[in-house]
């Protein structure tokens, strides 16, 4: 396969050509479905670059020391002095780093790559080594958006982005087949074509600095960026370089408005903010909030006495079945019509703490710490307990003082008692299963607006902790997985918006669906940690079997409690300001052994902040 022969995707090819002409263009990200040729084309990028240009691929399983560089064990032991082994970043200097499925690379590693790129050098401060080397490179990467989004921060670093769709025209698809299996057809591979292209890009390069950029073009570029709400100033600069490279490619001596327009979609598509939508919603609700300030004030006073509400469920246990079957609800609760409520106000959520378990895992994310099973993750300390991962620095340090006594000749003398091993730790995301009550009672007094706001806030937290999310809605006699497990919090947010309200409350069906989902995922990836978030007012009034509602919930809860690596949180959406409170959700929470929160409890914890800052005062000034 050659670059010139690659069928279709002219914008992607143009993006690569422009980058080959000028590395200032800042790299390309290809976003598209699997099997559509992203990787193939990216690898062909090499054919356009001068032969000596480094082109390094980063596999997803790369470890920190391979990426950054680390201590060279063999040399160090042989020579008895610290020897540095160069990492990927060093090899990539002056060239290209290619990452397939970049959205699956762990956040820690991405942060390290971006840090080095931003600085133009790699600073190594690890395992007793302190040195730095230049590391200037552009990133070419591909991703499949179905498997999770990329942070806007990372997106911003890419000069260009191409949305990649599969080819639809039949004749092009036939072409692709022929090219893919070219040995079966007439071999029309034209190696010369790529040589020509390489030559052409090489010729364009020295022309760049002589290309004029008129003042009105600069003005046009900035105007376009402001018009498109581009945050930050990288966009402006990348647009300038792309336009200039394009003029060079077209053989012009001056950048024209048309050149800017041609490359504009490549540079600006991915720079619009992900959070922009959210911010707009925030603004919409600003007015509403001003009005409700008064209410919130009274709310806070009530909050002073939350104990009595929680520990004193209104009903004794024995008559609760009856209570659930015929909830003491006013007429309006059973309003039959369906309604879709908008998202309410979002807020910063409190910090949930989950106990670190002792399982060694391969994982990624930012929520809870876990010991790592592979050689990935942060090397936290050296330990004596043997495993495969030798901590060479600690071992050498342990051996070093005894070399004289041991009468060292050439190589370092390391005895068994010197051996130290690495304890590594990394943070992992959970799979957060949102089980949302979509029954009619949630629509009373527009409670669903606030509830959706709360769920959205939790989703933002999930994004920051790099959790996977899944969503189950129960209403009208059944529970439905509206979102199978995904890393795309954005998608979850979209689904959330569309949840309609109406019908009875089959709470046990929702829990059972969650149970099945967790079981399924556990079979596939047994180390997953789950967080089941049940959002409901607890007014269950529909069962899936013949058993009474309450009994059924208890049975399913018992099943759920047996699941490994699963934490439970119940968010009670009942309006606690009202005179009559049922606190039914609290009962469900105790059956599940779940942590229980009202929506207000979910808000970032002011008390905890105080305790923490007092603590630091004690130690500090």
């Amino acid at each position, binding site marked *: 396969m050659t670059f010139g022969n690659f069928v279709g995707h002219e914008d992607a090819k143009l993006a690569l050509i422009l980058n080959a002409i000028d590395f200032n263009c800042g790299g390309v990200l290809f976003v598209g479905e699997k099997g559509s040729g992203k990787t193939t084309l990216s690898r062909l990028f090499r054919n356009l670059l001068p032969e000596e240009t480094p082109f390094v691929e980063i596999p997803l399983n790369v470890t920190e020391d391979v990426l950054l560089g680390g201590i060279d064990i063999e040399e160090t032991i042989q020579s008895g002095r610290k020897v540095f082994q160069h990492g990927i970043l060093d090899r990539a200097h002056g060239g290209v780093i290619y990452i397939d499925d970049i959205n699956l690379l762990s956040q*820690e590693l991405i942060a390290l790559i971006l840090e080095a790129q931003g600085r133009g050098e790699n*600073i190594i401060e690890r395992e*007793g080594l302190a040195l730095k080397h230049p590391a200037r490179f552009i990133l070419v990467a591909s991703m499949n958006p179905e498997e999770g989004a990329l942070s806007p921060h990372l997106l911003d670093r890419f000069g260009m982005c191409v949305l990649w769709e599969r080819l639809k025209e039949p004749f092009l698809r036939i072409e692709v087949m022929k090219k893919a299996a070219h040995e079966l057809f007439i071999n029309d591979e034209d190696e010369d074509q790529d040589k020509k292209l390489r030559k052409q890009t090489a010729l364009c390069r020295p022309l760049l600095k002589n290309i004029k950029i008129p003042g009105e073009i600069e003005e046009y570029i900035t105007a376009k960026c402001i018009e498109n709400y581009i945050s930050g100033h990288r966009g402006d600069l990348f647009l300038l370089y792309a336009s200039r490279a394009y003029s060079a490619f077209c053989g012009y001596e001056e950048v024209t408005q048309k050149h800017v327009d041609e490359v504009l979609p490549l540079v600006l598509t991915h720079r619009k903010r992900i959070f922009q939508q959210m911010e707009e919603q925030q603004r919409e609700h600003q007015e509403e909030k001003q009005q409700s300030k008064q209410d919130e004030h009274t709310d806070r006073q009530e909050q002073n006495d939350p104990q009595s509400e929680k520990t004193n469920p209104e009903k004794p246990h024995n008559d609760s079945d009856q209570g659930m079957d015929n909830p003491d609800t006013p007429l309006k609760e059973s309003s039959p019509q369906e309604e879709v409520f908008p998202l309410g106000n979002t807020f910063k959520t409190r910090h949930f703490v989950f106990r670190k378990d002792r399982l060694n895992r391969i994982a990624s994310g930012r929520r809870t710490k876990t010991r790592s099973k592979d050689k990935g993750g*942060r090397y936290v300390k050296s330990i004596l307990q043997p495993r495969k991962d030798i901590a060479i*620095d600690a071992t050498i340090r*342990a051996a*070093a003082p005894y070399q004289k006594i041991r009468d060292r000749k050439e190589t370092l003398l390391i005895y068994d008692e010197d051996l130290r091993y690495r304890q590594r730790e990394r943070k992992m995301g959970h799979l957060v299963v949102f089980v949302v009550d979509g029954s009619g009672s949630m629509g009373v007094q527009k409670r669903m607006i606030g509830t959706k706001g709360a769920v959205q806030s939790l989703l933002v937290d999930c994004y920051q902790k790099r959790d996977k999310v899944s969503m189950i809605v129960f209403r009208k006699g059944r529970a439905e997985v509206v979102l199978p497990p995904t890393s795309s919090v954005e998608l979850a947010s979209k689904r959330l918006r569309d949840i309609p309200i109406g019908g009875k409350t089959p709470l046990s069906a929702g829990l059972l669906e969650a149970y099945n989902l967790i079981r399924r995922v556990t079979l596939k990836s047994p180390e997953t940690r789950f967080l089941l978030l049940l959002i409901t007012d607890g007014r269950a009034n529909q069962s899936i079997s013949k058993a009474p509602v309450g009994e059924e919930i208890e049975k399913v809860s018992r099943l759920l409690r047996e699941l490994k690596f699963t934490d439970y949180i119940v968010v009670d959406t009942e309006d606690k300001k009202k005179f009559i409170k049922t606190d039914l959700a609290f009962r469900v929470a105790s059956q599940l052994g779940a942590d229980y929160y009202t929506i207000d409890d979910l808000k970032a914890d002011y008390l905890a*902040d105080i305790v923490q800052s*007092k603590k*630091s005062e004690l130690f500090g000034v």
Partner: protein
Amino acid sequence: MIFPFTAIVGQEEMKTGLILNVIDPSIGGLLIMGEKGTAKSTAVRALADLLPEIEVVKECSFNCDPNGFLCNQCRERLNNEGHLHSERKKMRVVELPLGVTEDRLVGTLDIEHALKKGEKRFEPGILASANRNFLYVDEVNLLEDHIVDLLLDSAAMGVNTVEREGISFTHPAKFILVGTMNPEEGDLRPQLLDRFGLCVRVVSIQDKGERMEILRRKATFDSHPEEFLTARSSEQRNLSGKIIMAKDRLNSIRITDDILGKIVDITCSLNLDGHRPDIVIMKSARALSAYREKDTIEQNDIKDAASLSLSHRLKRLPFEDISSESEKMQSILFRTQA
């Protein structure tokens, strides 16, 4: 080659925040929050060029202040020789990379020395080089928890105490912590947040003219860095001269009870923890007035200092979000100025 500080367009608060910390390092650092691509990192790295010289003990790897707390080595030398020689050294911006390991941060046993001589010797880490310098953490909210713990530990004490691998060592570790972060990527732990004396928020510039100027300067710098630096050199010299003068002037500026009263007026009407905010406002108001070449602290110095010192300390009550409290602050500061 580093893009020069004086060539950064706009973002005056951020630039002032950095400069004030050079003038008075005891202000306690700066946190720069903001969206991507707004010259946060550029500004911090560019600061290095403007830093003045400080007096340090000659040949000390810990930058000991001859008149301050000394490291084990200097103490020993002082005991043996009765005096310490000193020299002048330019302050630096020491970077803390995200991939740092514990041993490199606090320091550890010097392997090579142990191998060659069979003796244990302490090999200084980043905290040692950061003593009396700027310590810069890019994306500080992404720093690993166990590294943050170590950082907080020595930030609180101003001392790094190492007890590992048979080594016992103590050295001063007073650094000016500068961090940048993009809040979209996650929060900062409250203890760490409180460690930053000042905090600024940066947003991208929306003015067309300024935006064009940014584009033009960056493009020129990319293509002809040397010429660009030469063209800027006199401006750079002027600014570092101005900073040195402000440092000299600093101690001659009197802080009257009247001024203290005005500061306390501000802090009392807001809901703030502890007394650190008062102290930070006082120090930065003094540094500001020195930078503005005045002999006394004026109303607008206090106001500007307060807005730099308070934004990250405003308490967030569970039912109010940060914006209402910051509106309150703005209105109080507005009154202060009037």
